[in-house]
Every structure is written in structure tokens, then in C-alpha cells.
């Protein structure tokens, strides 16, 4: 695989900032965009644009076909059983809110329990907190150990006959831990508890087969998948979508509207109120094709190689402490440097063209648990190389020079 050639497909890397080339290590936050996506959105607006699913003119028909084509591609990409199981949202956050609201409305009562983990992003905690406030639900946190792992036992011991949902991340956006989803879902199935997976850090990096995985819900954010901002995908098993009430009300999501009553169509229409991010959804088809042309297996392998190289390199750097030591790690390395706050690290790295993220990464529960307010995080995409890691390491050494450590 020629990473230089793949990288050349991302226009952002053409321009230099302050004479330095961009070393982009913030893909867990959002990935960069390939030219095929940018061109597709631009062409769609220039030549094919119309709203979808409403008008009868030929532009609308073509636009609707393109839009629905993306749904079919996603269905295939994650191996869903039915196309109706793919719902467009604005991001993964909205996917979780959709389930928290609709599933919560129908199935959660006072004192019912929801299990999440200490690794969760705020997006997989705050919506459940709303439910706690609204319905009196109880949120239980499965413990994360010093390696950054959440064991199956830590989840098992929280399950009671009041457990109504288990919501866990696929891959931690801080420690990079890949959770034992198969074991978690097997366990949940024996107790008939549905499982929601926050796939933000999984879907861009790991081959997905939702039928094999057998989760009930899986959410992803397209902007982390070489795709546009403003688009997310919620996968949900059809049986749930048939049962759940609609989420937002508005145009497009109705069957019949009378003065005294309103009826709703089936999924996905039922859950897609109003005009969605039409051009972005059409464009996202190119991101999926881009990923599939490279091959998800190749992406996973390449990122694993660079992650391992990064871990080895940073572990040799005495000033650096790596956060977490999970057995199975995604393309994420979070770290701290003794005596230098992560924000200062990020500013100094930025001076070298190295883009990382610093802070709590929307995981305050985890940072509180680790007893550190913030970490610096390098996260990878398909365009990263060993050279990027070398530049990162050099720049870390510069932090020590600036602070005279």
C-alpha cells in the first residue's frame, strides 16, 4: 500500500503552514477529507441539486436516487440486514440521543438501570443522564482498570433484573481500548438486554459486520470516516425501529396528518424529520468507496503498524507517560509529559505543524478516575506514516527544551 499516494488524495496536505508540512494526528476528533468527497459535494450542488423524497421533477428523482444509494452503500458497508435499518442523523451524538429519547420514552421506567462504562465519551453519558432526570433511570458505570480495560466481569456484576440497556463504546477515544464487544453482547443476549455501541472510533478503523456482532444499535459519525460534517448514521435492528416512537416531528416523517391525529410511516422515514444534509449524504457515498477501494483490512493493518511504532518510540522517550495499556488498541495514543500541561504541549507541537488534541477529550469521568485533568492525544488516520511519529517525537523533545526540563 502506497501511503504517499493515498495521502496525495487529501488536498489539505498540499499547503504548508509556516513552511512546515502538516502532521495531522487528530483524526479521532475528525478525519481529513479526500478530494473525491469535496468534488462530489461541489458537483452535486453545481449539477444535480434538489431536495429529496418530495418533488416530482427529474432533478428530485435523481437526487433522491443518489441519496438512497448512500443508504444502500452503508447497509453493505456494515452488513446490515435491511436498508430500513440505516437512519441518517446529524452525528453519532444525535444517534444516541434518538435512542435515549425514543427507547427511553417507551421502555424506561423509574429505577430501571442503564449500564455504561467509565470510558464513555460524554455523548454516551449525557443523553442517559437526561433520562435519569426525566424518568428516574439509574446509570451504572462499569469500571475501567489501570490498563484502560473494561472487563466482562465488571459489566456482569452490574446486571440486575432492572437492567434495560447496555451502552458501550467500541473503541475508547482516550486509551484506544478496543472493548470486548462479542463477549459483552453474548452476555447481554443471555439476559435479553439490548446493547448500543458508540462506534465513533470503531467504524473508521475496523471492519464491521453488525449482523455477526448482533448489537441492537450502532452509531457512527461520518466526519470521522473521511466523510462530511453534519452526517451521522444510526444502525438499529428493524424490530426496534418498528416498535420505537418517532424522534423529531416535522415534514417528511408523517404518513397522514389530520386535525385530530397523525400517523407515521415506517423506518427510516419515521426517524428522518425535515430536510437532511442532502449534499453531504450524497457525498458520503464517495467516502465509503474511498475506504473500500483501500480496503478496511488494509486500513486497520496500516494504522496498527503506525500505532505500534508510535508506542515503541514514545515509550523510549523518558519524559512521556502513555495513558492506558490495553491489550487491544485502536489508532489512538494519549500521553502526558512530566511537568508540562497538555495545552502547552499542543501549542508547542502546533508550532511544528503537528496537530494533536489536548484536554479531557469529552471524557471527564475517565480523567477523574485517572486523577489527571487533561491528556495530550495523537490519533491516526490512513494518511499517517512513521515519519509523522518521528516528527511528533522530535516536537515532544522540543516541549522539554521550551520548559527547560
Amino acid at each position, binding site marked *: 500500500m502506497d501511503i504517499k499516494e493515498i495521502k496525495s488524495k487529501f488536498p489539505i496536505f498540499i499547503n504548508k503552514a*509556516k513552511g512546515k508540512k502538516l502532521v495531522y494526528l487528530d483524526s479521532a476528533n475528525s478525519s481529513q477529507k479526500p478530494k473525491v468527497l469535496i468534488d462530489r459535494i461541489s458537483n452535486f450542488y453545481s449539477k444535480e441539486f434538489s431536495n429529496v423524497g418530495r418533488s416530482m421533477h427529474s432533478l428530485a428523482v435523481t437526487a433522491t436516487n443518489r441519496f438512497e444509494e448512500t443508504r444502500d452503500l452503508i447497509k453493505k458497508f456494515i452488513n446490515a440486514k435491511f436498508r430500513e435499518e440505516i437512519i441518517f442523523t446529524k452525528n453519532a451524538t444525535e444517534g444516541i440521543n434518538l435512542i435515549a429519547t425514543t427507547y427511553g420514552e417507551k421502555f424506561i421506567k423509574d429505577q430501571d438501570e442503564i449500564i455504561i462504562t467509565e470510558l464513555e465519551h460524554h455523548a454516551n453519558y449525557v443523553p442517559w443522564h437526561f433520562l435519569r432526570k426525566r424518568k428516574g433511570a439509574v446509570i451504572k458505570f462499569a469500571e475501567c482498570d489501570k490498563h484502560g480495560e473494561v472487563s466482562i466481569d465488571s459489566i456482569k456484576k452490574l446486571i440486575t433484573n432492572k437492567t434495560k440497556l447496555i451502552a458501550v463504546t467500541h473503541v475508547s477515544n482516550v486509551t484506544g481500548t478496543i472493548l470486548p464487544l462479542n463477549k459483552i453482547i453474548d452476555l447481554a443476549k443471555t439476559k435479553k438486554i439490548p446493547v448500543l455501541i458508540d462506534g465513533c472510533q470503531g467504524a473508521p478503523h475496523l471492519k464491521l459486520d453488525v449482523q455477526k456482532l448482533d448489537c441492537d444499535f450502532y452509531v457512527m459519525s461520518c466526519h470521522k470516516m473521511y466523510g462530511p460534517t453534519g452526517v451521522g448514521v444510526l444502525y438499529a435492528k428493524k424490530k426496534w425501529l418498528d416498535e420505537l416512537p418517532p424522534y423529531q416531528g416535522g415534514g417528511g416523517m408523517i404518513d397522514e396528518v389530520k386535525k385530530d391525529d397523525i400517523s407515521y410511516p415506517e423506518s427510516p422515514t419515521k426517524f428522518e424529520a425535515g430536510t437532511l444534509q442532502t449534499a453531504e449524504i450524497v457525498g458520503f457515498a464517495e467516502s465509503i468507496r474511498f475506504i473500500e477501494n483501500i480496503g478496511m483490512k488494509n486500513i486497520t493493518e496500516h494504522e496498527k503498524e503506525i500505532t505500534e511504532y508510535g508506542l515503541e518510540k514514545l515509550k523510549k522517550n523518558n519524559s512521556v507517560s502513555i495513558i492506558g495499556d490495553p491489550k487491544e488498541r485502536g489508532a489512538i495514543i494519549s500521553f502526558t509529559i512530566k*511537568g*508540562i*500541561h*497538555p*495545552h*502547552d504541549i499542543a*501549542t*508547542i507541537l502546533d*508550532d511544528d505543524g503537528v496537530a494533536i488534541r*489536548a*484536554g*479531557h477529550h469529552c471524557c*471527564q469521568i475517565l*480523567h477523574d478516575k485517572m486523577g489527571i*485533568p*487533561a491528556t495530550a492525544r495523537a490519533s491516526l488516520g490512513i494518511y499517517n506514516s512513521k515519519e509523522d511519529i518521528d516528527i511528533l517525537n522530535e516536537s515532544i523533545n522540543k516541549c522539554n527544551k*521550551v*520548559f*527547560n526540563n
Partner: protein
Amino acid sequence: MDLKELYQEIILDHGKNPRNKKKCNGFNKDAKGNNPLCGDKVHVFLKLNDEKQVEDISFEGEGCAISIASASIMTEIIKGKDFNVAKKILENFINMLKEGSKPSINSLSDNENTTIMSLSGVKQFPMRVKCATLAWHTFLHAAEDNKKVVNTEK
């Protein structure tokens, strides 16, 4: 953008060895400040006497070198000043970071001027301005009995 202008000796010194980082004795006012985007926290303690003079000021908190240094520098400069003067210094300081204007306070000694000017480099790093202003906004909340927690993102 020049890193050396941001991380000047004075700032690194205050960042590593912050002054007045404690709960000061006999404080009669306090306020908290948060930067929810990055998790920085500051708690400012103030002893304001009947003549509205800052008898003592201190802080506790966690954050980057810029935010800790700025809080530390603030306590050094504001301690002993009348509240109205302190408020003027604060306004000048914030204008310096946002507009690039030089502080024009006659009551500051040369040494104080040099110290406060050491933070002027922050202006070149817009992402870091909030780090430098958090403690100062929090001081104002404390002095004016504003019980709302300062939030840089409000």
C-alpha cells in the same frame, strides 16, 4: 507566532512556582471559574476590606502554564490595590490580550508592568487567550459577589 514570546521566562517561572496558590487566611469573598472545553479550573479567594482594598488574594486550581502563570501574576499585582484600580488593571489586561493595546496604569511599578507585559505574547495565540483571562474574570466575580461560576464558553 513566536513560541518564545508566549513562553517567556517570567511565565515559565510563575507556571512552575505559582505565587499565592493556596486559600488565603481570612478571605471574605471567593468565586470559581471553569473552562469546560479543556477542563481548566480556578478558585479565587479574596480578602476585601471595608475601604474596598484588596488586602489579600490567592487562588487554587489546575491548568496549563499560561493559566497558572496568569493567575499567579494576577494575585501578585492586585494584592494591596484598591478594588477600582484592580478593576482598571483587569480591563487593561484583557484589552491587551484582545486588542493588543498596552496597559496604561500609572499606579503600576516598572516591575509590575514588566510582569504583566510578559503575558502580552498570548495575543498571538487566540486559542490560549481564555487560559490567560480565566482567573481575572473569576477575580471580578469574587469581588462583585457574583455567585455564578465563570465559564469561558458562555
